[in-house]
């Protein structure tokens, strides 16, 4: 983070003023302001994180607190990386991640681009489109299971209405082929507005004079779109992808309600498996190691991505 003028001024001015007014040094006051937050985060974020790291080297089982705990070194990590089921989870997660991002970027950008035509009442319609992302994912997942019911479900009815297929001939949530797409559809319905809003902010940040200059230079609309609009929105779009990526890597609530990881383990995303290992099989040590691996993966991928993002921004 660079020092903007405000911050520079903040650092320069009030030191002497505050000292004159009161006995407390600026540093002490700063800690009074920042301290409580840091304390809370230490207690509920850092301490648990360290505890998880510690647990990940043990064979602790939380449902048997009295059993002696043994340190097993890196064995949990070894077992996870050699576990073929975990790789299936990762594949399911990757499928979910990639397709939700593809659909959300395509639809979200298109919508933002259309809304930016500034037609009458665009504010109101933007708000309506945003509604799904404000809702509780667990409740959303819950009522979508209703739409996905074979025979009686609204989704099956609409599909059969347009394609003529028998509405009881396919089960979105019960079929191995369709379930991974069922969760992608719901997530896209819910989160496309987020990508749309970020893109809209990007489109609105492009000053008009650039287009005016391009028009005077007789650049076609098509050319303007590819050489002005896309490059200038790209940093925003990439940011939206980063946020959706992190969120969907952690995805739990929506999918657990929709499929519970099934059928089989076709939609068992990493978080769902983690929950199963930690709170159903109570393999606390093993699942702690898995949690650390997931965290390091998100963190690593996000850091690489942010570097790429900064390069795009610099251009």
């Amino acid at each position, binding site marked *: *983070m660079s020092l903007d003028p*405000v*911050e520079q001024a*903040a650092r320069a*001015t*009030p*030191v002497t*003023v*505050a000292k004159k*007014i009161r006995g407390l040094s600026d*540093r002490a006051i*700063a800690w009074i*302001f*920042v301290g*409580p*937050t840091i304390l*809370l*985060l230490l207690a*509920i*974020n850092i301490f648990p*994180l360290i505890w*998880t790291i510690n647990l990940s080297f043990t064979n602790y089982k*939380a449902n048997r607190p009295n059993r002696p705990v043994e340190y097993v070194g890196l064995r949990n990590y070894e077992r996870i990386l050699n576990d073929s089921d975990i790789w299936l989870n990762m594949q399911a997660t990757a499928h979910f991640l990639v397709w939700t991002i593809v659909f959300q970027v395509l639809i979200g950008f298109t919508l933002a681009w*259309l809304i930016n*035509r*500034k*037609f*009458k*009442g665009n504010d109101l*319609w933007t*708000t*309506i*489109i*945003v*509604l*799904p992302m*404000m809702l509780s*994912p*667990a*409740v959303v997942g819950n*009522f979508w299971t*209703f739409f996905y019911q074979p025979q*009686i479900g609204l989704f099956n009815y609409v599909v059969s209405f347009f394609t003529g297929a028998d509405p009881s001939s396919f089960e979105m949530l019960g079929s191995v082929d369709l379930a991974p797409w069922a969760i992608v559809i719901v997530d896209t*319905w819910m989160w496309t507005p987020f990508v749309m809003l*970020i893109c*809209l902010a990007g489109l609105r940040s492009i000053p008009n004079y650039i*287009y005016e200059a391009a028009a005077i230079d007789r650049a076609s609309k098509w050319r303007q779109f590819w050489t002005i609009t896309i490059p200038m929105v790209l940093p*925003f779009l990439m940011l939206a992808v980063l946020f959706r990526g992190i969120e969907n*890597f*952690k995805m*739990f609530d929506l999918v657990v*309600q929709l499929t519970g990881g099934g059928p089989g383990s076709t939609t068992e995303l990493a*978080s769902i498996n*983690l*929950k199963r290992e930690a709170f159903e099989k109570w393999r606390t040590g093993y699942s*702690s190691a898995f949690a650390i691996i997931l*965290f390091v993966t*998100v*963190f690593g991928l*996000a850091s690489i991505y942010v570097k790429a993002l900064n390069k795009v921004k610099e251009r």
Partner: protein
Amino acid sequence: MSYSITEPSSRQKKVAGSLVILYAFITLVPLFWVFMTGFKTPPDSISYPPKILFTPSLEGYVNLFTTRTRVSPETLQQLPPPANFAEEIVRNRNMVIAGPSKYGERFLNSVIIGFGSTFLSIFLGTLAAYGFSRFKVPFKDDLLFFILSTRMMPPIAVAIPIFLMYRKLGLSDTHVGMILLYTAVNISLAVWLLKGFMDEIPLEYEEAALIDGYTRFQAFYKVVLPQAATGIASTAIFCLIFAWNEYAFAVLLTSGTAQTAPPFIPTIIGVGGLDWPAMAAGATIFLLPVLIFTVMLRKHLLRGITFGAVRK
């Protein structure tokens, strides 16, 4: 009207407008359908083809708020006439009301935990944001990044040690425990958003106040707080919506006294009964406040979403 080469033509606007409105309608169908299902009878809710026209009934809402037991037709006839509409609806299904359901309690828990954690996050977040915005804090950038990175943890990963810790401290399934946890999750976003709002407030106001003899704290709450009010309000809405919607921690760390509505609503459907209207009624009551909030406060909310994301 002045002519501009960058202004879209009115035909373009119309086409764009109708496409967006079409998408908005498609997006609304599921919500509208849930709302309607809440007013259907159970047989109507599972009819094929799906019914758009139906006689509205409050059965879903009655079932949502009550527990019922089945009785034989003979006993039913011996009972005094139904005291209210709810009993009448239930008796039509050969049942009597046994007592209130847990939905009311769960909803109240959501309110207590939602508002409690929002208040605490805003209180701590405002102080921290002011500290970060105006003072030299050692390792400031690292601290800010660290605060943010806590959001990258999958909730389940955080839940394992929290579960163990709360079990030891006796905080599992308590309101205090959930309020503290949601505050810890929310505070990262709160600090980031609020710091942005505070950076925008010119320093000159505070300096003038300090020279006039205000202390730092007086300058903070008499000068800076009123200026940041809008930012604080929109941040509060984000915190509230997060706490209101949260599911993963709630389902793992609460089971009874402090359980919020999101883990409870899916259990309404009931064993084998598939009581979709009651589930839809529960969802409607739970989602409606957020929908109304969003529409009413759209300007601040939409700004907050993009602002929060773009700053990060």
